[in-house]
């Protein structure tokens, strides 16, 4: 069964804001440095659980992403991977330059995989669908272009996205 879900999120801010917090969204961040720091922090846990933790990244990789957010997300993902992989397993993290010019981070482990039923119970679909916003400009074009590729398409406003990401991070615990 092919189960592909795409959640596309479109920010509610249609105009450029003068809020200083917006600036942090686009300030360049060195992904390699973030991963190196996380690797140092996670090494102890991996040793304790007899897992092999491998973190490889090439030269400085600058990405247009909020550093704190990335750190938080990667820390969650690494933590989940380490906690759900049995002793003797591996967790590999690799950061490379993506074919399209961006940065690609890959985190993989050989623990138990996500069961489909877990997804049905943990993702708050009803809340997502009741709050969806379809704007005629970017969102709909976007939806039309990817419709054949996916089973489900959701457009959020930014606030719901933030809420979803904050609870989504802990939901990934249950996934992996």
């Amino acid at each position, binding site marked *: *069964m*092919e*189960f*592909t*879900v*795409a*959640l*596309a*999120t*479109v*920010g509610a*801010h249609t105009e*450029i*804001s*003068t809020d200083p917090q*917006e*600036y942090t969204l*686009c*300030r*360049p*961040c060195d*992904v390699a440095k973030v991963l190196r720091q996380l690797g140092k922090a996670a090494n102890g846990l991996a040793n304790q659980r007899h897992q092999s933790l491998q973190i490889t990244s090439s030269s400085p990789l*600058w*990405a*247009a*992403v909020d550093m704190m957010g*990335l750190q938080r*997300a990667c820390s969650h*993902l690494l933590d989940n*991977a380490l906690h*759900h992989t*049995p002793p003797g397993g591996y967790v590999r993290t690799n950061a490379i330059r*993506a*074919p*399209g*010019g*961006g*940065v*690609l*981070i*890959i*985190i*993989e482990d*050989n*623990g*138990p*995989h*996500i069961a489909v039923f877990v*997804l049905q119970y943990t993702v708050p679909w009803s809340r997502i669908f009741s709050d969806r916003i379809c704007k005629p400009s*970017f969102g709909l074009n976007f939806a039309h*272009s*990817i419709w*054949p*590729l*996916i089973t489900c398409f959701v457009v959020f406003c*930014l606030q719901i*996205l933030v809420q979803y*990401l904050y609870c989504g991070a802990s939901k990934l615990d249950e*996934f*992996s």
Partner: protein
Amino acid sequence: MRPVLLVMLQMQVGGVAPLAAESRDMDLKNGLDRDEMKFVRDIVELQLGGVLRVQSPHLLNAPRGAGGTRVEIWLPAATDIQLPTA
């Protein structure tokens, strides 16, 4: 820039992806479909936002229930960044 986050959850090993077919002899089939690849590159190259791709299970020759999880985070490059001015 209005940030876009695309989350793709793939709950099946491999698929009909042409890129995956090339790596059939490997134990790992994690290639992106050509359409998916184009789509992901569009988002990342145009700096519209990022893509989070979760593939679980991702190991072919794994014991039952232990297919592993692979998370890919595609981030836009930090070149030509326009900071909003007041």
